[in-house]
Each structure stands twice: as C-alpha cells, then as structure tokens.
C-alpha cells in the first residue's frame, strides 16, 4: 500500500469541522433538540469535536452518543453479499424520540454502515429526523444514502483507500489517499 496524496491536513480538517458545526446549527435553527451520535471508531472523536464546536459557537451542550458497528470484513474493502455491517453496541443515554439525530462518521463509501446505524437509532426510538455528517465522502454508493454535511468530497477509484487519522486515536490529524 503506497501513499499517494495527503488531502486534508490538521488545519483543513479543523476548518471543515467548524464549517459543519455552523451548518448543523444553521439547518437546525440553533441546535435545540439535536443529538449527535458518532459511529465507532473515528466517528466518535469527530462527534465530540462537533459537540465542542457547537458549545463554543452557541453555548449549547448537545447530548452525544455512540454506536459500535462492526464490519465483518476488512473495513477498507467494500461489503460483499452476506457481509453486511452489524451493530455490536449502542451507547445512547438520551431519548431520541422526536429529536434530530445527527450521525457522524469519518468516511462515507457504500452507505452500508450508515444504513446499519440508522436501523440502530430507529430501534431505540422514533427520531423526528436523522441527518448524516461525514468528514470525507468518497463516492461509490450502493444505497440511496446522501450526507447532509460533508467535510470534503474526494472522488476515488475502488483501487484507492482513504485513510483518516485523528489526534485522539492516531496522534495526528490527517486524511490521505493510498493506492492498494
């Protein structure tokens, strides 16, 4: 696997997340009734960062939760049939009924993980809306799923791999493209 290009560095990532935080507040008229839910692994620190930014902008403490969705596969590969991502754990300690749930993930690819995440949220309540925020949208959707907030659109081929690294987990903030 060889590295091709760095597409987002620390400051670009920070700017993208700041913009998304503003867009979330704008679209949700100030952010009342929202619940931010990060999808493990890297969606969780991203959700925390958005929560922090929203607090700074609007002085509003929004509830946060997390979903652990396991991919019974190398999560850099596309899903194949009978290889659907599955829910392992739900940590959402607030009632989502009539709330606007904002799912947060690092990379949007086929859409299958997000679908599993939506199922998980619907299992615990009836949110008034589910929205989706992703740091990177790399295209190649296999389901009719579209992000409401995108840090950066990165068209990719299926031979490419998008690697997201975050300070909290990887000790640096960076998004890069690798070639298989």
């Amino acid at each position: 696997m060889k590295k091709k290009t760095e597409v987002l560095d620390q400051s670009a990532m920070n700017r993208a997340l700041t913009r998304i935080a503003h867009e979330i507040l704008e679209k949700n008229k100030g952010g009342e009734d929202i619940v931010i839910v990060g999808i493990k692994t890297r969606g969780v620190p991203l959700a925390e960062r958005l929560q922090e930014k929203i607090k700074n902008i609007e002085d509003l403490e929004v509830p946060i939760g997390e979903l652990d969705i396991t991919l019974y596969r190398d999560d850099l590969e596309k899903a194949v049939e009978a290889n659907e991502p599955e829910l392992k754990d739900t940590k959402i300690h607030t009632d989502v009924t009539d709330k606007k749930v904002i799912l947060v993930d690092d990379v949007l690819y086929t859409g299958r993980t997000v679908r599993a995440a939506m199922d998980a949220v619907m299992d615990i309540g009836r949110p008034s809306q589910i929205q989706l925020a992703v740091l990177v949208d790399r295209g190649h959707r296999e389901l009719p799923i579209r992000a409401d907030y995108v840090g950066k659109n990165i068209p990719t081929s299926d031979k490419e791999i998008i690697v997201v690294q975050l300070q909290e987990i990887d000790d640096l903030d960076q998004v890069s493209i690798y070639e298989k």
Partner: protein
Amino acid sequence: MKHFLSVNQFSVDEILSILETASNYKKGYFPIQKQIFAANLFYEPSTRTTMSFNVAQRKLGFDVLDFSVDTSSVQKGESLYDTVKTFEAIGANILIVRHQDDHWYEELHSKLSIPLINAGAGKAEHPTQCMLDLLTIYEEFETFKGINVAICGDIKHSRVAKSNADALKRLGANVYFSAVPGFEDETLPYPYLSMNDAVQTCDVVMLLRIQHERHMYATTNECYLTHYGLTDSREKLMKKHAIIMHPAPVNRNIEIASNLVESKKSRIFKQMTNGVYVRMAIMTQLLKEWGIINEVIIKECEPIVT
C-alpha cells in the same frame, strides 16, 4: 410508440443497446432500406448537430429534407405544430427538431404518427448530445461503473449538465459538479468539487461552454481560464488515463487553454465523430420500433477516420 425526447425515458438496457448499435455502425456496417425521408427542423443555430444528423442520415441512405427558418412559412407566422404536421403530411418518415422553447415537444409528440427526435430544447435538454457523450466515455473505459465524472463550468445554464449527470448516475458513474460561484444548481443532488480537486481525482473532466449569450456580466477571458478553466498546469495534474470532453462550440482560452483542445487527453473531436454513429443508431432504432423499417440489407460503409 416512443419518440426520442429525453434520455430519462430510456432504461439502462435501452441506452446500452443504442450505444452498442452505434459501435457497430462505427465498425463500418449499416443497414440500407427503402426510401426514407428525414426532415431536419432547426429553429436555433447549430453547426455540429445539424451537420451530424445530415451525415448520419446520408450514411443510412435517407433522403434529407432540410428546412430553414429564414426561408420558410415560419416567416409568415406558421407555428411549430403546423410545420411539423406539414412535414408529416408530405411524407417525412422521421422528424428531427431543435427549438428554443424548453418544452416544445410536450404537446406535440402525442399528435404525430411518425417518430420525433429532440435535437435540443431551449436550455432544458439535448439528449442526442448526452448519448454521444456516453458513447465516448464507454469506448474509453468499457464501463460506467465507478467512473468519476466531473462536469465543470456553468452548471446553472447548461442543458448538458443535468441530462448527462442523471444518465451517468443511472449507469453507475459517480458524478460531481464544479462551478463558478453563482453558477451552481442547488436543485440537482450532486456534490461540488473545486476545479483543482476535480482535475486531480476524476477520470472524465467534462467542460461546459460559457454561454455568453445568457450572461449579462463580463467575464474577462484570462481571469476565467486561470480561476475556473482547464489550464496547462491543471491538465498536468490529471490522472494518466483521464480524458477531457467538451460539447462544443469551444471558447478557446476561456473554459479551456487553446492547445488542450487538440491534446492527447482531449476527446472533443472524437465526440463529434461519435455523434454521427449514435444518431444513426437512434434513428434506426426508432424507425424499427415504429415498423417503418426492418433490418434488410447490410451494406458496408467507410468509417470516419480520426
């Protein structure tokens, strides 16, 4: 019975079947049959589309009825409907119409007993252009699945952008737009890229013409090219296998640096060549569906050499 009015009316399989027929015509075979009159009614100026239909019709052995707005009864106030009915009455077997109204065919097509082809409807749709673009991409990559296509320029005023984007998406490509600020179309569900990102990541860079006739403010040429156009330095960032497309007419040194029009990655003139074959395929397909022709004799024809 179907007319050819919009790419949306055709299924993925039907689109692929037309592309396949067009590829076969390109190999040098085409059917010739009984006397067929084809009428070309162009209410808007056009070089490529009129001439391309003309060549396509002549290659198929049709008799071509050309019509000019300037010297016809349109000058006496004859409507499109009456003009079309006139051609039908005098024996035209297929009609090709371009008109400045976005919706010209909506009431017309149900009142005709011969096939009708949309060769451009205002700024709404230009489906034969879309088909030739598809053929050009298909020949290059032999698939549409997973191909990244960036449509760049004045998305808002373009009739190519929407129909191409929708068709490409249905065929499995990933479609992106890149537009000058203010020329986005928020009603279309495609993500936007900067021109720099588009050239670096996409397999097809499809440029649109800046439509001076629809813009009031002046875009100085150099300024547009450097900020939003395909410059030499941007072309160097493109992937090795990536191609440049443009529906033409090209504004050289505005949306694309002049020397790139004929460069190695450019398929601009190939698109025009493909236009002839794809129009042959569309016309024969319709005539067959309407029972006006059936596959009879196959005669060899010189392919266009590019």
